[in-house]
């Protein structure tokens, strides 16, 4: 109960501040003795602008224009007046007015420099930034994708986005300036309208396959802007959660006057990018005969199928074709926004429905958003952002893609009697994937209510107090049913499970913000205290042995075997103090410093608190008078540098404590509860801290038509949270300790160019990022350790593949000379040969391994072009990753040539006595899988990531129908890809920290094309 105390209390504070506003409203108004009326219009369109703030210089009093652009002043001063006009998206204007009424033109902001950028706990003008903050081009925001993180692909330098699953609503993995953590989290922090959330999935222990991306429960169509904070100057204010970068998401707001009803709907289809070539039934039967003959020559060459039968076989079942489909993508958004001077609103409703490229997989979201901002009283500003979204997904079970590839083409989907073929006839671990897909119920339903509300009170001129409270209620129901008539459910006669996750996170932020100037000295200071607590409950239950499959998971009590239910609960708390000061002298010399002090419940008793400072300097050289004289073509030039520390607290809960875990045993044939120790306690467990240096500059040339930004950074992450291996004799395998360090250094370049302006508008955004990752230390005395197919080694980057090196194929007559390099006890011609790395005269899998590739790219880039002419607009994003390797596990499975499971079409050129191949080994019933460089491929690619073509109907056509705007468009994703990678798609990763770049049965990515209409009334 007490956890909600703060929430309750904060609500009262908000009410209290409202009450204050009432008091303030009674203050006396200025004396009326003169009036000025006028109208503000757009300098290019000549249309009135509503909501412009018009202020008399030297007086605090200001008014706003109405929906006709008109304003009226009553003041104690006399003509001429000096007016200051400001409005978002327009250049601020200061002018002297000699007569009333006055018509004033405002010019749309030509450069992005005046653009207001959202930063941690506030906003800043782009030109005043001292840190590295990038804004996602808004063109990329309108892609029809299921979650906002997918819009980041290719859009921002230093941000690498890779797909962890092509499953509708599936996830992506994001690395900002490289991954540093080996065992902690590497994903950035998302701050949605001020509410920090991590994009992590909590498992309920029910269901199978890639879970739904939690960010898919936020509709991307409601998003106004996305900012990415990269360097320490920008992220240190997020302290212990800033080390992986911060993504700030701001949702749409209403604007005074413009009552706007908008509808956007698109409908499209998506298809798998390609199929993997595997053997048809005829070729598979030949392979299987060969493998069986090799194992038991005495039984003859036709143990599986006779020659005549093989000739009849033909293509057989194309399992991929059976499973892949053209899936629909359906996206609709309706919004109403507007407001008056004192209150603005944005109301949005969205519906998103996507079918996967694999049958019976889909994702649906329905939700609404309500954002309200109000100035009830002069000094008080209040606001509330609330979104409610319900999602529903049917997920492809784990291993389905792998099963589709290796299911023999001689097997059929159905038996002659119409029942499903249960499984691969030769391998008991692989079920019939089509039956699995069609008959398994594997759904995940989510409900997320995310809301923040704030009250901001102006105490004095320039001094604002703000109280923000927020809550994130995130619940999920997973439902799973395996019917008795498919292989997976046959053993248990049906299996039903239900899982529930219930997460509640609340936030309270209290900040004081002061902005002021004394002469040329401009200040902005921030002071605050924040607290966030998250509590999560998990429960699951299940049953087996049903007399009917009709009831699915809806009647667990009718299963005669009850699966032991389980539940868990965990929570974390973060307390933070924060302070920041931004100072500049004459808009030339900028200094900012910030400090956050975080206390986290996740760490050891002796190490709860950490300090995260940063300092940044910048010099707007262009504002120096000498510079303007020498370089008149340069509109702006700023040099920046920053240094600071951020942390990473993503280690899960209770890792420092000597917890016990539940471990049952049987006495008297009954299950009895037991417990066992889980770890050695570590009271010193603390943060991972990242020291980051950033140096960069921003330059604008030729009337701001060219804007170039370059940043160099060096990040060193130390005290890595590492499950340090300890001797097993202790009773434990590892202990979580702060050990080791990793560095990331890199260069980010981005260029914005307005190539053509006028009748034809053509803009180009290009970004390039180079990141170099290196493991510096991994604990005392250790220089490397092997993690599966990877090695973590000092001096090498994370994601280094470690395996054997192939060396051709053993040929007839070489059995005695080279046979010991096959790793087989009884070598035979046609076996694969491997290099003897350790030089001991023989090959062994364990000892003859070396570094055989790396999953880190040399560089990544994105190129966005947008061209508009009359009503037409065309934009496209070309994106690429160069120099990385991928581990193609699918291929490793397909190159086994066992005859037990299907093989890649390369098996056609396998070694046979008549085809002494040096590339592909012989058919063999039971080869041991060996991880070698054969399966490490170049993952470089360049792709036309998105293409958007639209037409805006001329306004005069629409006036009769009182339509403000009508746009028809076509949009496509992943239209073209250039790559040598043999798998489904090069843009994949397993999503784990260490095993990056593993492509193992990942749900394949899709190509999608949609047509849409966008209407504004």
């Amino acid at each position, binding site marked *: 109960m*007490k956890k909600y*105390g703060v929430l309750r*209390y*904060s609500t009262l*504070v908000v009410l*209290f501040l409202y*009450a204050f506003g009432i008091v303030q409203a009674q203050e006396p108004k200025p004396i009326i003795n003169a009036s000025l009326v006028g109208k503000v219009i757009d300098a290019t369109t000549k249309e009135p602008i509503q909501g412009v703030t018009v202020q008399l210089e030297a007086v605090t009093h200001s008014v706003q224009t109405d929906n006709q652009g008109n304003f009226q002043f009553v003041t104690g001063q006399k003509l001429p007046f000096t007016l200051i006009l400001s409005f978002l998206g327009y250049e601020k204007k200061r002018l002297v007015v000699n007569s009333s009424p006055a018509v004033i033109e405002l010019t749309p902001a030509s450069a992005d420099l005046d653009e207001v950028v959202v930063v941690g706990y506030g906003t800043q003008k782009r030109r005043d930034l001292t840190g590295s903050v990038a804004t996602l081009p808004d063109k990329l925001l309108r892609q029809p994708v299921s979650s906002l993180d997918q819009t980041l692909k290719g859009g921002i330098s230093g941000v690498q986005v890779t797909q962890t699953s092509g499953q509708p609503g599936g996830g992506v993995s994001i690395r900002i300036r490289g991954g540093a953590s080996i065992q902690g989290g590497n994903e950035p922090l998302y701050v949605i309208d001020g509410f920090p959330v991590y994009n992590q999935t909590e498992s309920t222990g029910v269901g199978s396959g890639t879970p739904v991306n939690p960010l898919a429960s936020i509709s991307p169509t409601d998003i106004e802007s996305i900012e990415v904070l990269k360097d320490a100057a920008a992220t240190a204010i997020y302290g212990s959660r800033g080390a992986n970068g911060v993504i700030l998401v701001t949702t749409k707001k209403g604007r005074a006057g413009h009552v706007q009803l908008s509808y956007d709907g698109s409908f499209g289809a998506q298809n798998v990018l390609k199929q993997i070539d595997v053997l048809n039934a005829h070729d598979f039967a030949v392979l299987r005969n060969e493998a069986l003959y090799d194992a038991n020559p005495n039984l003859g060459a036709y143990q599986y199928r006779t020659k005549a039968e093989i000739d009849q076989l033909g293509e057989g079942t194309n399992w991929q074709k059976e499973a892949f489909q053209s899936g629909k993508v359906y996206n609709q958004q309706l919004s109403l926004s507007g407001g008056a001077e004192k209150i603005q609103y944005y109301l949005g409703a969205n519906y998103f429905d996507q079918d996967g490229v694999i049958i019976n997989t889909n994702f649906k979201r329905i939700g609404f958003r309500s954002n309200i901002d109000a100035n009830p009283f002069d000094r008080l500003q209040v606001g509330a952002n609330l979104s409610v979204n319900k999602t529903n997904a049917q997920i492809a079970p784990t291993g389905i893609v792998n099963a589709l590839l290796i299911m023999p083409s001689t097997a059929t989907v159905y038996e002659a009697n119409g029942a499903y073929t249960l499984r691969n006839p030769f391998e*008991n671990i692989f079920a019939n994937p089509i039956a699995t897909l069609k008959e398994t119920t594997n759904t995940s339903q989510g409900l997320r209510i995310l809301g923040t509300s704030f009250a901001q009170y102006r*105490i004095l001129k320039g001094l604002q*107090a703000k109280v923000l409270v927020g809550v994130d209620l995130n619940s999920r129901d997973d439902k799973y049913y395996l019917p008795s008539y498919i292989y997976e459910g*046959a*053993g*248990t*006669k049906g299996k039903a499970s239900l899982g529930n996750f219930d997460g509640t996170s609340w936030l309270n932020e209290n900040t004081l913000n002061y902005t002021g100037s004394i002469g040329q000295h401009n200040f902005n200071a921030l002071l605050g*205290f924040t607290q966030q607590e998250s509590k999560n409950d998990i429960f699951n239950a*299940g049953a*087996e042995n049903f007399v009917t499959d009709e009831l699915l998971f809806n009647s667990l009590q009718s299963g005669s075997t009850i699966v*032991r239910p389980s539940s*868990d609960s*965990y929570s974390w*708390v973060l*307390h933070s*103090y924060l302070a920041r000061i931004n100072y500049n002298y004459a808009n030339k010399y900028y200094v900012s410093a910030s400090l956050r002090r975080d*206390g986290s419940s*996740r760490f050891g008793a002796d190490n709860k608190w950490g300090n995260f400072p940063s300092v940044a300097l910048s010099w707007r050289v262009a504002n120096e008078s000498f510079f303007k004289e020498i370089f008149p073509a340069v509109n702006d030039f700023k040099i920046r540098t920053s240094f600071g520390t951020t942390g990473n607290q993503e280690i899960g809960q209770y890792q420092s*404590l*000597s*917890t*016990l875990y*539940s*471990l*049952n*045993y*049987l006495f*008297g*044939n*009954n*299950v*009895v509860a*037991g*417990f*066992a*120790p889980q770890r*050695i*306690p*570590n009271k010193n467990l603390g943060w991972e801290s990242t020291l980051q240096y950033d140096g960069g500059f921003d330059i604008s040339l030729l009337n701001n038509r060219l804007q170039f930004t370059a940043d160099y950074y060096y990040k060193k992450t130390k005290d890595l949270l590492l499950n340090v*291996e*300890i*001797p*097993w*004799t202790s*009773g*434990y395998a590892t202990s979580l300790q702060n050990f080791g360090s990793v560095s990331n250094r890199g260069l980010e370049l981005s260029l914005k160019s307005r190539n053509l302006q006028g009748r034809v508008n053509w803009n180009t955004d290009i970004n390039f990022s180079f990141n170099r990752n290196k493991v510096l230390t991994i604990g005392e005395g250790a220089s490397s350790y092997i993690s599966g197919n990877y090695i973590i080694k000092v001096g090498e980057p994370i994601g280094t593949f470690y395996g054997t090196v192939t060396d051709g194929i053993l040929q007839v007559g070489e059995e005695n000379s080279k046979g010991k390099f096959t*790793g087989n*006890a009884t070598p035979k011609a046609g076996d694969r040969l491997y290099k003897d790395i350790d030089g001991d005269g023989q090959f062994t899998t*364990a*000892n003859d391994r070396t570094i055989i590739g790396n999953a880190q790219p040399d560089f990544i880039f994105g190129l966005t072009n947008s061209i508009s002419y009359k009503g037409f607009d065309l934009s496209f994003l070309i994106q690429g990753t160069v120099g990385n390797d991928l581990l193609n596990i699918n291929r490793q499975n397909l190159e086994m040539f066992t005859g037990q499971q299907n093989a890649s079409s390369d098996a056609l050129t396998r070694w046979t006595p008549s085809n002494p191949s040096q590339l592909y080994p012989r058919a063999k019933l*039971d080869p*041991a*899988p060996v991880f070698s460089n054969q399966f490490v491929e170049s993952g470089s690619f360049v792709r036309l990531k998105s293409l958007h073509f639209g037409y805006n109907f001329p306004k005069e056509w629409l006036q009769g129908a009182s339509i403000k705007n009508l746009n028809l468009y076509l949009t496509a994703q992943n239209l073209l890809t250039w790559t040598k990678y043999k798998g489904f798609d090069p843009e994949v990763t397993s999503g784990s920290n260490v095993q990056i770049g593993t492509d193992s049965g990942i749900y394949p990515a899709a190509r999608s094309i949609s047509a849409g209409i966008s209407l504004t009334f």
Partner: protein
Amino acid sequence: MEEGFCAKPIIMNKQFIQMKKIHLLSTVILIFLITISCSKLSEDPAGALVSEQFYLNQDQAIAAVTGTYRKLYETGQSLYNSLFQIGVEMATDDYEAGPRARNAHVRAISNLTHDASNDRMEQLWKQSYDAINASNVNIAKISAMSSGQIEPTIQLRLINEAKFLRALHYFNLVRWFGAVPLVTSPVETLSPQELFVTKAAENDVYELIIADLKAASALPNYKNYGDTDKGRASSGAAKSLLAKVYLTRSDWSNAKLLAGEVIDKEGYALFPEFSDVFNIDKKNGSEHIFSAQFKGNSGYQGNSLASRSAPADIPGINGDYADALHLEGGLYKSFAANDKRLAVTFTTGMLSPTDGKYYPLAKPQFNKYYDETVVGNQGQSSKNTPIIRYAEVLLIFAEAENELNGPTLEARNALNAVRRRAGVEGVLASETKDVFRESVFEERRKELVYEYQRWFDLARRGAVYYVAKLKAAGKTNAAARHIHFPTPQRELNLNPNLSQHPDWINK
């Protein structure tokens, strides 16, 4: 405390509202008041227990020991749930990696090409020490409990159960790896002294085993456990294991003494029918001295050996076929045709539970744990795996007596009790001591197939015997060093105070 702090400012708010002019002050104060937070930073796991909150009462002590029993097999390929088969028995003349054994390390053990980085042998080491640590924690923490927290008789029993389990795991370790580190107290800090232990001489390890088992001999007789406690270590279990320890050390007189005590005083008996040993309805019966307990299809754990030896391609059986009979070893042929154990131990064909057809097998497969009540996944077999059973105690007695006094009537009676129950003739009185010894070993081999005993029996006869037997079975890579396992390379890498087994240096 927190409630109080949270409530106070609310009362103050009302007063502030009255005071228009001091809104600045009031706001600042408010901001500071709100910083008195109501959430706490200390971790208090709701879904997990912390050891400081444990061992506070009798139920908790019981639950802690229960958890340690489970470490006989925890999850996946675990000690008494197939790891013994995969990681140990493959290296004998009776077993080999089946067609579906995909793990190269398992195939290496089967071919005797394993080395110090063999992952299955690493698991033997790892899981045994994990269980030992859990026992050490139990012994230390339960010993420290007061009589107000736990009934002294239960306290003693639990400590002795933990000692029994610790002895069992050390006994396995010392037989596999020779000299091993002897950790007898819980590891509670990350200090080098606690982590970087040295190996103790085999003799020291055995001293601990013997002391623990002597202590555990004070456990209740198995009949004195209630129905809900069946399956716990008992006085008979401790004495039987101790007899086996002495036998392994060729301490024949103590082996005979202890085995005799079990036979005379503990109240065990052979089941009339061999098949009852593996009858689910007769679990923890008069012959089962100590077993790993399984219960499939109940949300609990099944005995996965059933699946590992079951054929892969019979509808409704869905076996793994990763364990296979090594035909060249001659085990199958050594059974007399009328031996009742043959049909329980092996199967040569199976009835499909789904289509009702009979499927003959290419070669005999193991059948002891095949659970006919399970359709589909044989990994859900509910059959227990015996760790020590009465038939073996009789064979221990016979062997020890023969070594002491030759094949006396006493020795023959013990051996023949096992043979006659199987429906085969007793051994002849004319057998010499040496012949009788081999008879006992052959009987152990046949009686205890698939019960994790063969490697131990071969290894304790010494390198010459082991190598000869394996070579005779066609496993030509067998060498003297194979009567021990190499100390895992990982441990050598992490612990500077550890050294490789002398036979395995540079192998």
